[in-house]
């Protein structure tokens, strides 16, 4: 069947739209699996596919912010305390107090000025606090022993609004 170039593009677009529309989240197979023949899959052991990321991206309706530590800050399980203070800005102050053990505290100030952050952890606590382009904020994090992990992002947006994401 012959289609002019313009119609061919239109047809492909329609087909792509139909395929996307028919791909419900309940499908077990991903596009990645479909590209591998059964024979190849049986003969060559492969690492397990990771559809989780694909499904999460496709199904997610509400975006959840997570603050995974960077490779430099990745902390293996330990009994001791770990604190990180990253300051990229001017005149920021950070105080971190950790007692007991197995605490992890990450404080990042990215491009802000005159911010004052205090973190107190009593043991087995984890917190990640990041400030982006904020000015003059005073923030205290108090975590008694065994508190729930705390992840907070506070950012001054280009339109002047203050974003607070937990």
């Amino acid at each position, binding site marked *: 069947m012959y289609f002019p170039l313009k119609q061919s593009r239109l047809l492909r677009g329609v087909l792509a739209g139909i395929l996307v529309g028919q791909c419900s989240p309940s499908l077990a197979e991903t596009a990645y699996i479909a590209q591998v023949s059964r024979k190849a899959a049986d003969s060559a052991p492969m690492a397990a596919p990771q559809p989780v990321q694909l499904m999460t991206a496709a199904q997610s309706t509400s975006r959840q912010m997570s603050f995974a530590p960077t490779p430099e*800050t990745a902390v293996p399980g*330990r009994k001791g*305390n770990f604190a990180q*203070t990253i*300051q*990229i*800005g001017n005149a920021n102050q950070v105080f971190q107090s950790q007692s007991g053990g197995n605490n992890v505290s990450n404080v990042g100030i990215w491009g802000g000025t005159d911010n004052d952050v205090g973190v107190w952890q009593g043991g087995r606590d984890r917190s990640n606090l990041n400030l982006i382009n904020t000015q003059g904020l005073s923030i205290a994090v108090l975590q008694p022993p065994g508190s729930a992990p705390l992840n907070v992002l506070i950012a001054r947006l280009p339109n002047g609004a203050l974003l607070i994401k937990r």
Partner: protein
Amino acid sequence: MPFVPTTAIECIIRALPETHFLRLEAIARSVAPASGEYSFSVVKRSPTGSSNNAQSGAFVLQAGQQQVLATLVLDRSAVGNYRAELSLQSNDKRFTCTSP
């Protein structure tokens, strides 16, 4: 990386400059079994800002064991602009080391 040699416990602050960071590790080492309390405090004053970090807890060392008691990561501007002190308290004895 100063350390205080003793008959039983060594107190070490290891400073590890990295590309964008300065990693400080508070380390205790013992030739004999030992236990006690530690406190690790770091003060930094640099153009990017100031920070005070205080970490404390208990430690238990086996003979010949080296243990990282606490770790602090600062931005690279801390190099040359910080003061760290590690104190170990064990059996009524106190061991202290500083960095730099």
